[in-house]
């Protein structure tokens, strides 16, 4: 975590929240501030453009349904300007919105009504990925990642087996696998991985990591005792041992 958030330790990340509901906007701003983030909250796309011109932001939390110009249109405009990460707030369960949102270059989506801790976990995960791979981030976010026959589709947050069939993943498992795949052949410490699961799962976090890793191994048909794909590193960490291709 120290390595991941070295920058945020010096200076909290600046987040722009765009939501037309005043209460949600203010409460969300307070909630994120409570978790050491700097927040500017605006009510629509017009105000968001003005704020964008006058500030420097590490991440945008954007409601899809805005009065006037829609969130999608604003996201499209923003992508023309910058690679700033976008987390979209979508209508619950409306699959088409979320796919369009992700294809337009949003980095993640959270369905409303969201669990604030879930949103925080997603924001942190997106910040980590952005901070970790500045420059090369946008040539790969929405494109499928292939490793050892498996395909991870970030645009739809899903894993396909070598036969092309979807293998169910929980939100935490997906984030964990994406982190491992994006940094294939590099050791991820338990602290880094713990950060991904925080806010998602009940119970002690230490165990949550081991459980999530063992489930991932089961799903990837990686024999737990003699794991070849997700290897355990002595001293507390995991590494994905595979060549990753951007499809």
């Amino acid at each position, binding site marked *: 975590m120290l390595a991941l958030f070295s920058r945020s330790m010096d200076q909290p990340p600046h987040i722009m929240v765009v939501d037309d509901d005043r209460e*949600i906007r203010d409460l*969300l701003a307070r909630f994120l501030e409570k978790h050491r983030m700097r927040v500017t909250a605006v009510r629509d796309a017009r105000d968001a453009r003005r704020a964008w011109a006058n500030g420097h932001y590490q991440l945008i939390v954007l409601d899809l349904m805005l009065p006037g110009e829609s969130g999608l249109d604003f996201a499209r405009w923003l992508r023309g300007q910058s690679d700033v990460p976008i987390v979209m707030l979508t209508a619950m369960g409306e699959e088409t919105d979320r796919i369009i949102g992700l294809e337009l270059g949003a980095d993640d989506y959270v369905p409303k009504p969201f669990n604030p801790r879930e949103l925080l976990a997603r924001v942190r995960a997106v910040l980590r990925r952005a901070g970790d791979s500045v420059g090369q981030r946008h040539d790969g976010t929405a494109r499928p990642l292939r490793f050892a026959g498996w395909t991870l589709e970030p645009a739809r947050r899903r894993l396909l087996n070598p036969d092309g069939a979807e293998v169910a993943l929980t939100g935490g498992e997906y984030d964990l696998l994406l982190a491992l795949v994006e940094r294939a052949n590099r050791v991820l410490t338990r602290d880094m991985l713990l950060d991904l699961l925080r806010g998602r799962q009940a119970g002690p976090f230490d165990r949550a990591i081991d459980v999530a890793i063992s489930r991932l191994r089961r799903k990837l048909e990686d024999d737990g005792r003699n794991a070849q794909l997700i290897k355990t590193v002595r001293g507390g960490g995991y590494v994905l041992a595979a060549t990753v291709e951007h499809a």
Partner: protein
Amino acid sequence: MTFRFWPRSLAARTALVLLVGLIMVQAAGLAIHAMDRIDLQRLAEVRNISFRVVGLYRTVELTKPEDRSAVLGELHHGPGLRAVLSDAPPVDQFLPEMPPEGQRFWRINLNLVGMPPPFHWRGMQILGGPLWHRIVIGLRLPDGEWLNVTAPLEPLRPWHSPTFLAAFLLMTVVAAGLTLWAVRRLTAPVRTLAAAAEALGRDVNAPPLPEDGPLEVATAAAAFNTMAARIRRFVQDRTELLTAIGHDLRTPITRLKLRAEFIEDDEQRGKVLADLEELEAMVSATLAFGRDARTSEPVEALDVAELLRTILDETGDALPDVVPRLGYEGPPHWTVRARPLGLKRALTNLVSNAVKYGDSARVRLVPPASVGAAGAMLTIEIEDDGPGIPPGELEQVFEPFHRGEPSRNRETGGVGLGLPIARNILRAHGGDVVLGNRAAGGAKATATLPV
């Protein structure tokens, strides 16, 4: 009382009645025909023999008594006919006298042939008859001598006409064929109506029935379509209302969740968040129910075995106490084609239901016996150790908003949409789900999915 051979289908019943009637009419026709032929044959025979007997008699009477035997020997009698002169009326140890009924018939015919007045027999005796295949007619001459003629009677041949029988058979077969065809045609609309009612039960948006054909059929189809439209309107109104409520509830729930994060008391915050989770689950269920099961979500290949294990993992993460009573049995991987989010929701609902009412969920995945066969079904069984379901409610629990006995609702929550949603989704996939009670206690949900 039911007949063992009484068929169940309307077409078969109608056809059976008509065919039995046809066979009876044809049998009667055949009997009449046979009797007619017998009468004709007899009449022809009687006439024939009568002519010859009368002819013989005249010849004999015209002949002088001393020449009679010689003349009789010279005469050609015709096939089978034997004539002798005797001093006595005919006697035959094997032939009794003909019964009076038959005698009258023969006498009438012999008299009918008749002869000019100077000639007439002075007495007559008839022996035998059709039963003995021959007849003996004795005629007394004026001088007391008897002319006794023995004639064979042909056996009766009521069926002696192959063309008639062939025509008759052909007629019967054609009539039977026409009957079957007509019955099938006439009962087809009933089958169409039944299929349409079945389709409507599965999907209120099923296409309407064509309103054509005979008047009664067209009227029934129109009435059915009107009914379907009313049901559709009713369902639409209700789902639109639900969807509107669900949408409107999202904003306040989001606010409350954010507010809850600022509650200092950990215990209170936990409780508020748990309540909100439950509220959200209800809204989410309401929205899922309101949405058409055939959403735009595409059908894709997915590993249903892994999906089931993931659902169990998530259930265990949320409720660690239940983990020892969760289990999966079946192949480690099994690929089906389905709508991923829909199927996950359906199976999650079934597992949640088992955990909610039975505090346990043992899932078994049974692949179809023969893969690739038409109509092959994958079976997913979810068992729990709960109190089971009263037999009368096994189907009712799939009704929207049905929630079993009222007392347990406050404890277990839910709006009574979990099972209806699961059934809607599975049926939209071409499968289904039913509930049953296990012999060992507890309930068992059996879901099927085509492969």
